[in-house]
């Protein structure tokens, strides 16, 4: 061995550090442009500048839980209300969609027979269900949950049925060649094999549920969507921007939970 040292790349200049630097640079430029543009009133009259908005963001995130009546709640309460509606509606949707998807996916006849319903209902905007929900339930809380349920059911249902219907036939051949009983084949082979598809369906559904709740709540009474609507009525734009930022962050967190779950069930397969 000669005494040469292994050439090592500079740890301070690589793709990661470069992308972090670019991120902060672009963020700085964006904030400066915003601050200057708002002060010079080039966007619209009354648009808040970056520093006001950031101060509001700091205030709302450091005082999340106060309650001075329905139109003056901390953003933490509104967030919990939205999350609770999503949790109930989404869980109910998943409990329907996953078993139904498995049953539809196992049988080719059922797959073809139920496909028209799914294809017809899937593209309907969730808000189109709102009047129907209000008429049936006559209650804003239940209507919100209903809207989440009806709009987050389809991606999970479709992905589950697709995953089950397209399980690698070799796995099924292995099970058949061993004389595996039907139920054992379904639970030990077909469902685990379809799990990456099921989880990506659940991930898309969660994304949709989070998109829909904000829109639905504008027409209901509480929650993050109502917070935005309320601030619109107050014509106080900084708080609207704060809410948009918080909705984005929470959506990102929910999505990354499901992203991690996808990795957990993939076992080297591409999801």
């Amino acid at each position, binding site marked *: 061995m000669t005494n040469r040292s292994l050439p090592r790349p500079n740890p301070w200049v690589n793709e990661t550090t470069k992308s972090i630097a670019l991120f902060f640079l672009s963020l700085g430029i964006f904030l400066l442009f915003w601050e200057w543009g708002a002060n010079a009133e080039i966007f619209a009259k009354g648009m808040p500048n970056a520093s006001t908005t950031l101060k509001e963001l700091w205030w709302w995130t450091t005082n999340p839980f106060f309650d001075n009546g329905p139109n003056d709640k901390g953003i933490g309460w509104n967030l919990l209300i939205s999350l609770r509606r999503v949790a109930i509606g989404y869980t109910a949707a998943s409990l329907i969609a996953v078993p139904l998807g498995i049953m539809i996916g196992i049988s080719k006849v059922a797959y073809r027979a139920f496909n028209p319903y799914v294809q017809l209902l899937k593209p309907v905007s969730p808000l189109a269900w709102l009047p129907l929900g209000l008429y049936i339930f006559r209650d804003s809380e239940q209507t919100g949950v209903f809207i989440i349920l009806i709009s987050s059911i389809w991606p999970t249902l479709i992905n589950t049925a697709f995953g089950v219907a397209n399980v690698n036939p070799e796995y099924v*051949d292995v*099970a058949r060649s*061993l004389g595996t009983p039907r139920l054992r084949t379904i639970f030990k082979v077909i469902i685990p094999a379809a799990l990456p598809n099921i989880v990506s369906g659940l991930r898309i559904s969660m994304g949709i549920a989070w998109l829909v709740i904000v829109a639905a709540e504008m027409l209901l009474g509480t929650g993050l969507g109502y917070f935005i609507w309320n601030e619109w009525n107050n014509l106080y734009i900084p708080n609207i921007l704060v809410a948009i930022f918080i909705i984005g962050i929470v959506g990102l967190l929910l999505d990354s939970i499901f992203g991690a779950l996808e990795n957990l069930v993939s076992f080297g397969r591409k999801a």
Partner: protein
Amino acid sequence: MSIGLQTSPPEAPAVATSAHLSIRNVSKIFPGKGGLFNKLTGKSTSDFVAIEDMSLEIEPNTFVSIIGPSGCGKSTLLSIIAGLSSPTFGQLFLNDQPIKGPGADRGIVFQNYALMPWMTVEGNVRFAVETVNPKLSPGQQREIVRQALELVNLTGAARKHPHEISGGMKQRVGIARALAINPKILLMDEPFGALDALTRGFLQDEIERIWEQDRKTVVMITHSIAEALLLSDKIVMMTRGPAAKIAKVLDVPFPRPRNRETIDEHPAYHDLKTEMEHHLTLETRAVEEDRIRKLSRN
């Protein structure tokens, strides 16, 4: 000779777990799409005869290779023996019992391993053992799995998932899974087809070593003349499809245990090899010419 891993004495080969396979006048025809609707839309196809009237007797404790040009219905034949598809005409018997469907009396080694990616190496083998022997205690089941993995030298990889191990190791799991259920007959569908040449040679030696231990009846599909000559007692050469038939059955007289480095010193080796090469080359050329003719007609 290496018999270091045996758990039963070598002088008592387990003849009881071997089997006689009888294939009697088997044909497999895939029906084409007929009917008025398909005719009008130009989608009608004619019936496809994959295998025509094939008969074959496979004696117990024999290693049989089936070799033929691509598309000759070798894999179709194996899946019929496995019971995964049924013959259109004819019957199969395993120890005089008719084969009516899949069953654990036949162990299958798949070309693409067919390991469940969410189960560990140990879990894949245990799935088979639990399915076939549900009444054994978990401890007994684990012991069978342990022995099977030891047989293929995979004890150290038991807790790995399939995506963490090499192709050669994956196929050793496939072999362990097929053997762990103690089948009467082992069916292998181009077991080394997806492996590189060196790994393939290594696994062929492993198969030779394992087979010497209990001389189970084996039916193996292969493309490789050298592989067939190294492992088989009999080689079934098939004609090209469609309507594939048996062209000839060759006896391979080399003594066992065999060694890939010295096997070609046997006086019969070169004649057998030449005969197989001659047959396969002619059939493959005919297949290719058929395909070219079909393309230029369209």
